[in-house]
């Protein structure tokens, strides 16, 4: 895949021929220095963006030519996002935040709330259901985000610098949560520039200047 940004006469090849196969159930870290194209790749993998050229096949379906609303559907069903800045709805309670993707899937209120409550219990926030994001710590907010990412049982969990705004101890908590999610059969892609974080993954892909610099298995993953 290639992804080119054109700003005036300036052309940036954010992804300059990246070829990657990720299998179901993998736990993979994408690394690289700032500006190497991590976020660009992540956006494409998350169906938030499409490649300028090349194709992206997700679950056997070519999504690279899809329109906005089709991509919305794919994101809703196939992708669970965990962002560095949590990206929760500030006026919604934890349950409402977690249930949000289900709204776009047409799930009714009672069913939605029930599933969101279960998801929150699974990430250890059973006693914080009605809290608003500003009433929760950073680690708790990220747990809400993880619960939200898992709510629609997606094909991929995509995490962009998930611990970037967390202290070390909380980061370890979140990484152990990822470990647990991975063990239960989910596919996880973590974008990070931190070696410590990347080492939790079973495979590490390194980007530089929009190209894959290396793609290696991690024989000794850190078990949080």
């Amino acid at each position, binding site marked *: 895949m290639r992804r080119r940004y054109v700003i005036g006469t300036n052309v940036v090849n954010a992804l300059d021929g990246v070829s990657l196969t990720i299998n179901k159930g993998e736990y993979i870290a994408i690394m690289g220095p700032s500006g190497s194209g991590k976020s660009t790749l992540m*956006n494409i993998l*998350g169906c*938030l*963006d499409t490649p300028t050229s090349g194709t992206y096949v997700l679950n056997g379906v070519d999504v690279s030519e899809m329109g*906005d*609303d089709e991509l*919305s*559907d794919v*994101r*809703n*069903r196939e992708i669970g*996002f965990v*962002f560095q800045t949590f*990206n*929760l*709805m*500030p*006026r919604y309670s934890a349950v409402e935040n977690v249930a*949000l*993707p289900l*709204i*776009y*899937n*047409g*799930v*009714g209120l009672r069913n939605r709330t029930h599933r969101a409550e279960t998801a929150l219990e699974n990430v250890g926030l059973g006693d914080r259901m009605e809290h608003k994001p500003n009433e929760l710590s950073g680690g708790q907010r990220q747990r809400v985000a993880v619960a*939200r990412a898992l709510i629609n049982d997606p094909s991929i969990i995509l995490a962009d610098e998930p611990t970037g705004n967390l202290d070390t101890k909380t980061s370890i908590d979140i990484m152990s949560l990822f470990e647990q999610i991975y063990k239960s059969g989910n596919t996880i892609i973590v974008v990070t520039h931190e070696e410590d974080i990347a080492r939790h993954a079973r495979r590490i892909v390194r980007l530089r200047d929009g190209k894959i610099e290396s793609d290696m298995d991690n024989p000794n993953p850190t078990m949080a």
Partner: protein
Amino acid sequence: MKTIRQIYEALRMATQSVVINKVRTLLSLLGITIGIFSIISIFTVLDAVEQKIRDNVDKIGSNVMYVGKWPWTPEEGQTEYEWWKFVNRPSVSTKEFQEASELIKTAESTALAVSIYNITIKSGNRSRKEVELIAATYDYPEMRPTEIRDGGRYFTPMESNSGAQVAIIGTKLAEDLFDDVDYAIGKTIKTNNISVTVIGVFETEGTNMFGTSYDEQVLIPYTLARSFVNLSWYDKDFIIKGKEGVATADLIDDIRSVMRRLRRLPPSAEDNFAVNESSGILKQVESIFSMINLVWGFIGGLSILVGGFGIANIMFVSVRERTALIGIQKALGAKSYTILLQFTFEAVLLSIAGGAIGLFLIWIGTLVATYGFDFEIGLTLKNIVIGLGISSAIGAVAGIFPAYSAAKMDPVRAMSK
């Protein structure tokens, strides 16, 4: 089902947002409020006026003519009211009335009435100034029917013809003079040193479209008035009610030819009298209202336009403030139309709230008019629906542009805001 739920969710989110930004919201609604207030208040007043007109026409029948010196509207083809021409016309005399009543074959009944203004009425040590005294012949109530309250009665033909010292008075006057309306019957009132006995009190009428009301008037037999004022000084109304089924135009023709004959006008001479349709004044009122309508409607339209821009503006601000949240919603799978609906609903809701405030103010106004000023007027369901309909339409039109700008946002860029 899925779509309905999305619509419901959009509505819910929109409501939350409206409720949260109360003050800012209220300010931006002012235009819509003023606009709906002006437009629907015209409709409301107009409806009330129309109802009054219809009631009046129902009461007196549509084919009642007033013959006198003065036309009620400028004559056909004239824009100016040529009062200098009318002032020198002869008044309808009692003799003319009697002769014409015989000759006008299309008339069902006729009456001669004269209004004497600024009369002082006394009873015991109480008095009322500026009362309108109407002296009229027997058939007068057929042209202006108002029921007489139980316990009272109308003149007998005998009383009417002989000029008996009897009177029927309005409720307001009865209250002022006797405190209790029912005490009035049989009491004596004095005017111009003549004592008359109250034999009846009119049912409360309220102010009618002519700006007059029986409530503060005194009705006496025509012949009685002759005994204390020189009636030839007064302009009299010769009132004619047409027979059922006679067309207004035929009735007018009949009246004109009889009057011209009585006054011996040569064919070349203009009429020296005016034949006024009782509905003519109503038409005049309507034409005045259509002017007011136009002006008020223009103000209302302008306010609504301003209000629409206000709403569009507040919505653009709202979209800008919530850009990051829109990004999150889209990332999580919200489709363009969900976002579009959400913001359009928000605008519609705002606009409806603005309109509802306007309607509420009108409602207060109708209560004040009805109970404070005795002018019966009501905010009808039809007008409420029209008001809210206009509001939602404006909201939808004003909201669609900001909503569209939200709907087409790129999620990645929106989230980074």
